[in-house]
């Protein structure tokens, strides 16, 4: 039987427990790092083992995982880690997690409910019962909401400042990414290529960068932020309209890089911003 903190090492109160157990970075052996790295590899590769190990190992691995993903430096990995803890919490759900967090899960104030990322569609605010600022959850939804709290807490504060962490952690972090993801295929993004090669777009340039160009260049084509920014600036120089702040372009590119954001599909833009599609169609950029 695993302990409470073994199941929920991401809880704020678990840190005190780890301190009581005397878990310190400098005591962590290479062997422990190797094991943690292999375990993280299974999580990141989408084949996680949801079983709960002993308390010391779980608390230790939680700390190591956070350091590793911080070294890896991408929200893609943070999300994978968060989803691992979310799913494990959902599967091993018990009410204790809400007691620990001071939440009455059957009647959650809206502000408290919205603090957690709703990673399951069932827990989205528009799918649950909401009256006068209080969210009423059913028994069926409690494990899912518990998973959302686990996700949010486990990724909170990432990336950590790893400047003082021994260099060997970085080596093991890299080993956690067993198979380097091949750059994503740019097939199926012909509409973005068409926009990229277009000139004289009078309106919607910021939206185009936000929906498509920044995510496409860094996430799909794998360009470095500097390369992506210069490509976008070159594209902007071919369009009409007023000046766009370079810092805004930089922010969008870095955001896409940090979060691993993928470009919006044409269908999504058609649904959410039909005006932009009309403009591009009117210019013959899109069919």
């Amino acid at each position, binding site marked *: 039987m695993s302990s409470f903190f073994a199941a929920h090492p991401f809880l704020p109160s678990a840190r005190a427990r780890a301190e009581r157990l005397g878990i310190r970075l400098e005591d962590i052996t290479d062997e422990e790092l190797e094991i943690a790295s292999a375990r993280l590899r299974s999580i990141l590769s989408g084949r996680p083992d949801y079983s709960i190990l002993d308390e010391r190992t779980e608390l230790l691995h939680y700390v190591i995982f956070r350091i590793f993903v911080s070294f890896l430096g991408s929200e893609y990995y943070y999300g994978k880690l968060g989803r691992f803890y979310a799913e494990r919490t959902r599967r091993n759900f018990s009410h204790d997690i809400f007691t620990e967090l001071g939440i009455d899960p059957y009647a959650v104030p809206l*502000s408290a409910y919205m603090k957690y*990322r709703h990673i399951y*569609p069932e827990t989205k605010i*528009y799918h649950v*019962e*909401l*009256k006068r600022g209080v969210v009423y959850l059913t028994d069926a939804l409690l494990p899912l909401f518990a998973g959302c709290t686990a996700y949010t807490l486990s990724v909170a504060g990432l990336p950590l400042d790893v400047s003082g962490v021994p260099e060997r952690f970085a080596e093991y972090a890299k080993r956690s990414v067993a198979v380097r993801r091949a750059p994503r295929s740019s097939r199926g993004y012909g509409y973005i290529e068409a926009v990229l090669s277009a000139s004289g777009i009078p309106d919607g340039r910021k939206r185009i960068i936000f929906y498509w160009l920044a995510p496409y260049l860094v996430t799909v084509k794998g360009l470095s932020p500097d390369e992506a920014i210069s490509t976008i600036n070159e594209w902007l120089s071919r369009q009409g309209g007023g000046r766009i702040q370079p810092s805004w372009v930089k922010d969008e590119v870095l955001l896409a890089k940090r979060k691993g954001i993928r470009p919006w599909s044409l269908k999504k833009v058609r649904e959410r911003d039909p005006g932009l599609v009309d403009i591009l169609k009117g210019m013959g950029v899109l069919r």
Partner: protein
Amino acid sequence: MSEAVARILRDAFRRYYQSHAVPAPPSVEKREFGVGDYGRKIVRRHISFVSEREFRRYLREHAPLYISYSIAYFKKPDAQPMEAKGIEGADMIFEFDADELGLFSPNDLWHCPNCGSRGVVGELRGFRAGVCPNCGDPAKIIMFPDPGREERLKEEVDTLVKDFLMGDFGISRTEISLNFSGNRGYHIHVRSPSLRELDKEARQEIVDYVTGRGIDVRYFFDVSRVPPRGPKPTDGGWKGRVARKLVEILSGAKDASELVRFGVSPALARRIMRERGHVVELIKKGVWPFIDTKADDAFASVSALVRSISPYMGKEIDTNTSVDIHRLIRVPDTIHGGTGLLAKRIRDLWSFDPYRDAVALPERPYLNLHVEYIPEFEFAGEVWGPLEDKNVELPLHVSVYLLSKGVASWRLTTQG
């Protein structure tokens, strides 16, 4: 508008700000401000004021044509870059624009930047919003004051405030501030601590809630039971809203066609109508007997019901204002530099007439304009138009309004 008109405007703005004490936004010392000039809404930002007094002095001395403030609260609002400001939270803003909601009036003009065609919306049969009937390109709609449109806009605003913000989100009326945008719509400022600390993703979810985007009605049903269990009118949120809407439709429907409109098959619609009293009773208990859970499109008609409820669904609404915590928005009770209308704070929505109550500019000086075409409309308590291809001398307030619409051009100024 020419620079000469801009100069006249600046003088008129200065006189207005010298004679009116504009209230500063709450927590003025934590807000970043941006000001704009002729043709550009933001020319300079990262401005801050330590007090309301200083804010008013700035308005009196500089009389900017546009002044906006951050919806966010900052530790150091004038610091640069943005990260150095130290964000402490942000209000939530909902924008309602008549053109985004497709609220066109027969009086409005349309004009196509591509082929140059233009005309009056009411003269076209089946005018499809925003599309030129000649070439199919996006058309520009030029709106004129229309009481019918105002009523519809107010209904949308009222629904958002009462049903969603107060009813669902439990926000107190005192935490909601409503103002005219100064152009074609309304801004709703929500200054509730319960929403203040939400991040971008959570704000997007709130916006999705209001717009009904992303709703998958399958999550409202328990299909493991026979007949399926679904939402009851007494349920909260969208579940209850869907059930109440269905009960309302069933109770008021004259014939089966009103259900067919939502994608219900004619045969099933007739059956439901025959037994509608019983069906309504069942729905009140959360039992939905007519959902065929084996059919591919089992929930299509319920989805159609959701679409009919949300006035914003499928509309091209700029939700960035609600989601972007770094946004600057016009300061309530200041003048919109394009239209000359006040972004007036509203006490009573239903008695508010923007084209009477938000007119900030004086009559004088009169401007000599060449008017291409204007329909008949009411502005500042008087009726103007119709006019076509005429040179006229008009008071400053209505002149600025027409210039902002691009339907008139300035010829020369006369003082009088």
